């Protein structure tokens, strides 16, 4: 992402005259003071939980008797990890979310790109109104949107089920087959506009001469889009993909709300839900293990994607 080094023209600390060295020391001291409040909280609220979760994941709590006696905590090594890898419900929750992401993310980003290109084209009308409408779902809190959709999917009140029944189709959005697609639809509805806006902002930053030159050379609208505009917004597409990977990995709100109306959405439907479930039954060490695995996988996926695209970028 950020490759620039602002302020690189500063005298490096330790180089040159005594005066410069004094200035360097002063800089370091001020920088530390400015960073301290954030740094303290960052350490306490982000770094410490990671370390704590990793630490917890290596232990196991044994409860004597019927769980009424005193509990003892013993070092368990990698036992929890082995358990997690053999936990078929936990593993299938990964597979489920992965399947969803593989389909939903490209569909959503493809739509976001298409809408951004359409908004950017000269023929577009009511640009501002469309832009605001597309972006609006982002303003709805995820849980509130999920509550709204849970009603929209519920057979008794859903206007869509009613309309489809009129044309002779009996559709239950919460049935076994459709519920994953329904969740995908909720995510697409909520995030397409947000991604569209990021891509659109990048499109707006393309210098006008570039597209004009392409048009002069006889490129049609679509070829300009394909050869000039899409390569130019590559960084924005990478950014939105990384955001989407992270967002999909932490899928929680939608299935958590839907599980109240759809029995197919089990308490271990997504990895985060499964982790919650372990915590609910006081198996904190196992919950910590599951958190670590999920965080690690998400980090590897998003970071791997970044590295992969960056390396490819140097050849392009």
């Amino acid at each position: 992402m950020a490759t620039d080094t602002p302020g690189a023209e500063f005298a490096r600390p330790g180089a040159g005259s005594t005066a410069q060295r004094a200035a360097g020391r002063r800089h370091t001291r001020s920088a530390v003071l400015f960073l301290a409040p954030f740094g303290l909280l960052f350490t306490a609220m982000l770094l410490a939980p990671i370390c704590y979760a990793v630490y917890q994941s290596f232990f196991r709590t044994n409860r004597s008797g019927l769980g009424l006696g005193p509990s003892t905590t013993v070092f368990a090594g990698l036992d929890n990890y082995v358990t997690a890898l053999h936990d078929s419900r936990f593993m299938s929750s990964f597979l489920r979310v992965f399947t969803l992401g593989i389909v939903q993310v490209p569909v959503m980003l493809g739509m976001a790109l298409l809408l951004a290109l359409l908004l950017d084209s000269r023929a577009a009308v009511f640009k501002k109104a469309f832009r605001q409408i597309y972006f609006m779902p982002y303003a709805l809190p995820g849980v509130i949107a999920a509550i709204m959709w849970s009603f929209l999917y519920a057979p008794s009140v859903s206007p869509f089920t009613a309309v489809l029944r009129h044309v002779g189709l009996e559709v239950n959005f919460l049935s076994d087959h459709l519920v994953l697609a329904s969740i995908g639809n909720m995510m697409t509805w909520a995030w397409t506009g947000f991604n569209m806006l990021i891509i659109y902002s990048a499109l707006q930053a393309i210098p006008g001469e570039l597209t004009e030159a392409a048009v002069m050379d006889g490129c049609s609208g679509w070829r300009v889009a394909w050869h000039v505009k899409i390569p130019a917004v590559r960084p924005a597409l990478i950014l939105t993909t990384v955001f989407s990977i992270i967002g999909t990995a932490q899928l929680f709100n939608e299935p958590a709300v839907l599980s109240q109306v759809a029995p197919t959405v089990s308490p271990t439907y997504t990895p985060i839900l499964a982790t919650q479930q372990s915590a609910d039954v006081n198996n904190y060490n196992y919950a910590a293990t599951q958190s670590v695995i999920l965080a690690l996988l998400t980090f590897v996926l998003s970071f791997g994607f970044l590295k992969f695209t960056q390396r490819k970028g140097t050849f392009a």
Partner: protein
Amino acid sequence: MALFALYTLIPVWWLLVTATKNSGYLFTTNGLWFSHFDLWTNIRDVFQEQDGIFARWLLNSALYSIGGAAVSTTLSAMAGYALSKYAFRGRDLTFNVILGAVLIPDVMFALPLYLMFSQVHLVNTYWAVFLPSVVSPFGVYLSRIYAGASVPDELLEAARLDGAGEARIFWRVAMPIMSPALVTIFLFQFVSIWNNYLLPLLMLNSDELQPVTVGLANWREGVNQGIPYNVTITGAFLSVIPLIVAFLVLQRFWRSGLAAGSVK
């Protein structure tokens, strides 16, 4: 384009229309058009359900979001400014650690934090939700970019020559220049705190402390135990109005913020 606009609008339209119906009409009339107009009665019901706890929830949400976003923006601005404008050993390492944290979703921290907080008896207090909300690695990332792009080094040097201290330079010179960008960070953080669900769900037991997202989700769950559909739906409708208004009014800040974030 129009088709996608319809796709975006229909659910919200349904929410608006349904918020005006009483529970009888809810099941019997066309979901996408008005019937008997009962919005005011519904709103009264929402505020009377469970002894008027809905107002409390809204207040809590506002408190967490405004307070959290304000503190978080200030901290991010200071950190981002320091990372951008001072050369010091370990700067790149510090920045990379913060950037790495952006790639791990917030949700992952919720459970370990809960375990830690329960040991120091912070669970079920305002602090349990407030403290984690003020840390925003993404805010630091953005404010470093803004500081690098908008605050000229010459200006800082000139202020130093005039004898101003570093803290004074930051508050009086750099902050005013960065303020439009800081509005964007504030907005991002405000929305993410307002929308947060898992963290308050874990941390808070008492109804009195909950933000509106958790409260409404509990009502949705309670549909079978006698919380009427129309109360939940109208409550959901009411809780999004402030956000939608804020969005439409402050749109230009979103665009500038997202643009700066994506060019890098």
